């Protein structure tokens, strides 16, 4: 079967610094794939390239949501990447703080709506129907994510764990075929991490959305992932199942340093 995301030899230079060096990566339908590596390895840069925030220096990024036709992401702007079905969250929370929870999710639906500016100004029946539909869909989505009690709260007033979940909800509102989560468990306590674990599995299995995630919480990564890629200094040093990665000498070296004979 064709992978839904295929990245070939992705390279990104910042001046003389090679932040990403010929990275290959594939995600298949229904998979949860993790991207791990020490701090500064280039994981977030990789996300930024895929989502159109950076343009890669070299390499190809292809998606095929239906498993047939391939579409290149090279040169697309972030809003067009989102439209083609990739949504992401950020390492540090980037909600629209001064909007309500519901509005944050509705904003995500924005790109799937048809009404233009005239419709928004003159409120014709078709727009009103669409608007109502969006409110209902957004509410249902919040129920699924478990945030329905916060609907009319401002995003900035939510507890930390809930803000993280809201980021995921907003990303899901764009109806992606794939979610890119950048350290979703960062700063969460054990209980919140457990809930997040369940949520990610639920999104993957029930909503049929594939997931690519960056995470430092190894327990979470090992329990969730179907496949793990390890990067260090911009290079891919390993890929495999959690079992394989655990015992890979290169990975251990990257994380713990080399053993020196005394």
């Amino acid at each position: 079967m064709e992978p839904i995301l295929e990245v070939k030899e992705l390279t990104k230079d910042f001046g003389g610094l090679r932040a990403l060096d010929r990275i290959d990566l594939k995600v298949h339908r229904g998979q949860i794939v993790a991207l791990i590596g020490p701090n500064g390895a280039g994981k977030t840069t990789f996300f930024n390239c895929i989502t159109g925030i950076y343009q890669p220096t070299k390499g190809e990024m292809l998606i095929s949501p239906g498993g047939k036709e391939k579409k290149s992401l090279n040169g697309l702007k972030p809003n067009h990447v989102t439209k083609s079905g990739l949504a992401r969250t950020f390492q540090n929370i980037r909600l629209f703080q001064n909007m309500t929870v519901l509005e944050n999710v509705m904003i995500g639906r924005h790109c799937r709506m048809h009404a233009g500016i005239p419709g928004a100004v003159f409120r014709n029946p078709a727009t009103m129907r669409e608007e109502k539909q969006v409110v209902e869909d957004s509410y249902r989505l919040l129920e699924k994510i478990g945030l329905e009690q916060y609907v009319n709260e401002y995003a900035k007033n939510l507890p930390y764990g809930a803000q993280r979940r809201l980021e995921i909800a907003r990303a899901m509102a764009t109806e992606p075929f794939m979610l890119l989560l950048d350290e979703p468990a960062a700063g969460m306590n054990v209980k919140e991490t457990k809930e997040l674990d369940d949520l990610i599995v639920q999104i993957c299995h029930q909503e049929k959305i594939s997931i690519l995630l960056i995470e430092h919480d190894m327990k979470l990564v090992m329990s969730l992932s179907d496949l793990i890629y390890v990067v260090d200094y911009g290079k891919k040093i390993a890929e495999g199942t959690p079992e394989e990665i655990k015992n890979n000498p290169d990975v251990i070296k990257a994380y713990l340093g080399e053993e020196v004979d005394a």
Partner: protein
Amino acid sequence: MEYFIELFLGGLTRGSIYALIALGYTMVYGIIQLINFAHGEIYMIGAFTALIVAGILSMLGWNPVAILIIASVIAVVYSASYGWTIEKLAYKPLRQAPRLSALISAIGMSMFLQYYVLLAQTSNFLPFPSLIPDFKFMEPIEHIVRSSEIVIYITTAIVMVFLTFLIKFTRIGKAMRATAQDRDMAMLVGIDVNKVISFTFIIGSATAAIGGVLVASHTGQINYYIGFIAGIKAFVAAVLGGIGSMPGAVLGSLVLGMSESFFTGYISSDYEDVFAFLFLVFTLIFRPSGILGRSDTDKV
């Protein structure tokens, strides 16, 4: 007492006009953090367009109310297209540049438009027909408040309600707020940020053009320079209210208009502009974020 009421209503008129211009300043600032100094010129172009259209139509012998409506509509459309073009030409290429570059570009644009109108039209004051009719029911109080002033209050109120509704409840309004809060994130949830910015300029310019038409037919004369002083005053009002905040712009405009009116009425009319700019200086010293502005704490 009657004198007081007269000054109060005069202040309300000034305030309403400032508000119509200040709203555009504040909306654009909210979205791209740029003081659009060419905004006053849009207001002036609105007035000139209306004058030209009104001139042609009155030669054809139309009735004043029809002329007023058609001239306003054409002025609004024409000014909005100016606003859109200015953004595309002078600001969009500088979006990634330091903020100062865009600001200088804005000042350049302002001068360009002033002198363009100076050359294309004239440097003299032109008489503007009083398009707003004198209402019958206004006659008893005509010596205190003129019909045109009533029209200005009502129009400003309608525009304010419309904008509030637009920003609060519509899809494009949500997109505008999202863009104002975090432009990159707005793109990542699929908003076409360029479209949102263009739309903001169009709405802001249309509002300024309405102000231009109303003022011109209220005061009865225009020249190429009216945009400059009105623009600066509206800017003061926007800063006073807290730039970036729409209710702030309206409140600041009313405060400035009222205090100008009372100052000129009770103290001296020679120092009217000095007073407005003293207001700016004191606002910046004692409350730089304005009446309703939030003081930004920098993100760590």
